[in-house]
């Protein structure tokens, strides 16, 4: 019996030590939960000019803080907090402060549903800012409709914002940047019209909706606009080695290969293609920025990829936000997700400001659908009431120079039929 008690005591001690280590790391490095595991709150600003009897507006924030996309997720969460702090410091929403409650979805669909339920059922939030992750967000579509909770995020898969079969927008889901297809059309337009390329390949993770929803529209667009798709190679989530697919693409030898995964997979795809002897152009999605540049092992050349913001340009609206993010968190390199979180929150705050009753999800959603020329770090955001996605927001085309510095080389704004 004594031995068993000792054993249990030892297990408890180990657990406490591990949690202590984890919380130490969190508080020193990351904008991590402080009140309870997986939950972080930004309290209303002390001394702000808000009548004391006005209850704060509760805003939920679901991001990947510890999953496979946590580097982007933490930057996103920071951007949301930054926007909320700015708004609270400026007096809040019509005199009411914003209380932000952040939860970790760990890039997992079930964890995302749990986080959503806690925010809606326990914390009674008025609205939610979502992550740049389509898989968890897809699971919220029906929940948000049922609970009438407006969600603005960067889940780029079009199926999160519009019904795939009917094409109608889901009433409570909103995207604060161009969708996957819009972004794919942008890089395809650049490849066809500016680079004059004719034949293409695609190389993507068939188990990642974000990647699939880039690759398929890309192939469709180039096929309909004078290009030919010579190779469409995929791998699965959990696969580690994609060299066989790279060899196949290299043998087809298209003018360009479009790679559309998250950064780590993009780096592997790029390396495998170059190692297989492919010397053509590489086209990339908007995750070819860091940490791609720190993961890739072969020389990066003749590579063009998408960017939402020109974050290293002091003239850009995004520059100050990214700089503040790096200064506050000690991040080693700029990351556009700080801007994503900021933009989604800014769009949401503008709608909440116009609402007579911020807890009326139907009213807030209707106002979000009418979002027009809201100033964000990506530029002026206008949402299409038909699709709940942005219209007229340009995508930037970037490449790395000989010193491996990211430079913007062009900007593509899609025509009407493509939005």
């Amino acid at each position: 019996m004594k031995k068993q008690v000792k054993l249990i005591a030892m297990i408890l001690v180990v657990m406490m030590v591990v949690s202590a280590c984890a919380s130490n790391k969190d508080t020193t490095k990351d904008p991590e939960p402080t009140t309870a595991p997986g939950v972080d709150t930004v309290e209303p600003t002390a001394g702000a000019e808000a009548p004391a009897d006005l209850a704060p507006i509760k805003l939920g924030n679901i991001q990947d803080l510890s999953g496979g996309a946590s580097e982007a997720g933490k930057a996103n969460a920071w951007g949301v907090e930054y926007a909320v702090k700015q708004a609270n410091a400026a007096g809040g929403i019509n005199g009411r402060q914003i209380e932000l409650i952040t939860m970790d979805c760990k890039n997992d669909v079930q964890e995302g549903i749990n986080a959503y339920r806690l925010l809606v059922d326990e914390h009674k939030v008025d609205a939610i800012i979502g992550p740049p992750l389509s898989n968890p967000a897809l699971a919220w579509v029906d929940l948000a409709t049922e609970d009438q909770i407006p969600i603005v995020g960067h889940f780029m898969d079009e199926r999160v914002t519009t019904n795939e079969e009917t094409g109608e927008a889901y009433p409570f889901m909103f995207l604060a940047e161009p969708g996957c297809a819009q972004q794919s059309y942008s890089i395809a337009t650049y490849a066809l019209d500016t680079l004059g390329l004719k034949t293409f390949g695609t190389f993507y993770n068939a188990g990642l909706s974000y990647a699939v929803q880039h690759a398929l529209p890309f192939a469709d667009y180039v096929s309909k606009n004078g290009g030919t798709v010579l190779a469409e190679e995929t791998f699965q989530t959990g696969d580690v080695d994609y060299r066989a697919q790279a060899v196949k693409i290299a043998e087809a030898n298209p003018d360009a290969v479009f790679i559309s995964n998250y950064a780590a997979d993009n780096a592997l795809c790029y390396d495998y293609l170059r190692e297989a002897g492919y010397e053509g152009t590489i086209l990339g999605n908007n995750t070819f920025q860091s940490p791609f540049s720190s993961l890739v092992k072969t020389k990066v050349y003749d590579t063009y990829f998408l960017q939402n913001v020109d974050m290293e340009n002091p003239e850009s609206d995004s520059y100050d936000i990214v700089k503040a993010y790096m200064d506050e968190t000690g991040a080693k390199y700029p990351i556009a997700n700080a801007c994503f979180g900021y933009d989604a929150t800014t769009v949401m705050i503008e709608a909440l400001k116009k609402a007579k009753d911020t807890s009326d999800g139907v009213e807030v959603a209707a106002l979000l659908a009418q979002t027009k020329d809201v100033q964000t770090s990506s530029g002026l955001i206008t949402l299409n009431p038909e699709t709940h996605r942005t219209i007229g927001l340009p995508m930037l085309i970037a490449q790395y120079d000989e010193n491996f510095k990211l430079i913007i080389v062009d900007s593509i704004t899609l025509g009407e039929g493509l939005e």
Partner: protein
Amino acid sequence: MNLQLIFNGISLGAVYALIAVGFAIVFSILKFSNFAHGGMISACTYIAYFFQASFAKTPPLWVTIVVTSIAGLFIALILDTIGYRSVRRKNSPNIYYFVTSITFAILIEQILTVFFGKTSYGFPAMFEKKSFEVLGANISTLDFVILLISIAILIVLMLVIEKTKLGLAIRAVSIDSKTGRLMGINSGSVIIFTFALAGILAGISGTLLGMKYSVYPGLGGSMLVKGVIASTIGGLGSMSGAIIAALLLGVIEMLSVYNLGSSVTPVILFGIMLLFLFIRPQGISGKYAQDKV
């Protein structure tokens, strides 16, 4: 037949072989599947990465391999001391080994996640010339080096097992530990040495995997699956069988992905494993398994 694919398959198979042998060597002695081997590989990958990253100028590869081998050895001995040894002393059923190894595998991955998150890290590029051409095939310099190191390690390992007294003791204990004890073999020391050897192999595998792929907590676990398949096809507990099966597995995987696609390939690989279990459960080699029977 595409030479480039064959070479890629052999180099992939060589890494699988290192993993499979580390897995098989423990099975041969203790008759349980050490799933903690995947966790040990992941831990060693991080150690290799941070060791390299701690120097302004990247240290030579052999230095990193020596450091991670030593680290792997210590991790293996720690796991044995805090987990497996007490199971052994109590003569507990094999299911306790199994549960302990699974627990260690999950624990190591979670600890890595707590401290480093799930963010991927990348080893710095090691070679100026990334690939070279042989008979029209582009051979990656890194793959070639990984293949050479894997072959060298496997040769040394087989020499230790086949030509030294210690190797003889391992083989004797793997066939029958009680008879081995009657013959004067200290089976406790042999078991500890076996774990140490598995740890060293985890250290080397971790370094090579980290060099080739991205570093993340689940890397070792993902690769161990292939090691387990190779070990089963080779004959559970048979090292030479595991090596042959691993090389075949690497080539079959490459050809299958190339011709049939990535979604079908796992079905093919697990199908081959099941086929062996049904038709020839002792695997390609099967020597030790038959002896045990």
